[in-house]
């Protein structure tokens, strides 16, 4: 499947200070959520998966939201622009109420969405970003998270709203 999965798993494993588990669980690299979930849970950073079942469900909900609505249902087929922007608007409105994607704080959902959105935001115009201020604010927060590496070294500039 999509090669970016490999990239994401590799970088997450660096961040978690843990080997990539694909051989332990016997499946390939075409399953971003299940592989990263397992490797996070079995790493010293298991709290990134939430501490209660409710948190866990919410975190996973947003990762699924990203996988199905933003990354594209089929990774090799990019989503039509209107659909992508519909989903981004939804995320933007969600993030108007949250500092992090999931209510409990910084979690795996922030990391995976950060990986994925980096590629999208880097290609966006200033005015497009202005329509997604809450995503930009959240993204800027996450890209300053220590040791977290984005998709590429390019820094995403986030528009300022406060003058």
């Amino acid at each position: 499947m999509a090669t970016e999965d490999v990239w994401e798993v590799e970088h997450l494993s660096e961040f978690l200070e843990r080997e990539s588990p694909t051989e332990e669980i016997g499946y390939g690299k075409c399953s971003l959520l299940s592989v990263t979930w397992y490797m996070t849970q079995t790493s010293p950073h298991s709290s990134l998966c939430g501490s209660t079942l409710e948190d866990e469900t919410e975190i996973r909900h947003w990762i699924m939201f990203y996988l199905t609505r933003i990354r594209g249902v089929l990774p090799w087929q990019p989503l039509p622009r209107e659909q992508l922007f519909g989903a981004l608007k939804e995320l933007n409105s969600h993030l108007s109420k949250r500092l992090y994607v999931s209510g409990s704080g910084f979690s795996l959902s922030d990391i995976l969405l950060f990986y994925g959105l980096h590629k999208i935001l880097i290609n966006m115009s200033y005015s497009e970003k202005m329509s997604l201020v809450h995503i930009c604010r959240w993204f800027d927060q996450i890209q300053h998270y220590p040791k977290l590496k984005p998709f590429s070294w390019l820094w995403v500039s986030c528009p300022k709203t406060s003058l």
Partner: protein
Amino acid sequence: MGFGDLKSSAGLQSLNEYLSDKSYIEGYVPSQGDVAVFNGVGSAPGSQYVNVLRWYRHIASYTNDERLAFPGVQKPLDQYGGASTSAPPADDDDFDLFGDDDEEEEAEAERIKQERIAAYNAKKSKKPALVAKSNIILDVKPWDDETDMKEVEAKVRTIEADGLLWGASKFVPLAYGIKKLQISCVVEDDKIGTDFLEEAITAFEDLVQSVDVAAFNKV
């Protein structure tokens, strides 16, 4: 300087604008600055102050003890957020850097950026460009048992293209004396698709009945 009276609507408005593009009062982690302003606001603001509300709820989700353990030293309330009157940033790549920490913040951001560029370059030199490649095994079936499979193989190997490298092959018996050609190749994903391979091989229509992808693995 400061947000003014945080109990007044003007003060909350000012704080709301300040937090529209920031998660925390200072920097990228909760700090004593957040505690100071949090205490100044005192209670959850109305929903018209969406940014304040978001931030307030987040800070409120910590216990008092946790808040006390936030880094930094509390300063007088009016020393936070004063830059709301400063000029807009000079360019896009600038960061929201305010007050006394400006220089330091910028230097920190620059350092992270340089680190990343260095890491990226290092990686690039080690692993020259990440080219996505796939290993494909194709099953090529002939029309009948009289087809010269050697010829089939020879024809298939005549297909040349940028990003295509033929690998090992063998003849696998099917039934009634018919054999199929199983041949592997490595392709660069950007340059060669399976459609191309299938089309090119079925072009030998006198020899080839069908082509199927038997395996497809990312390298």
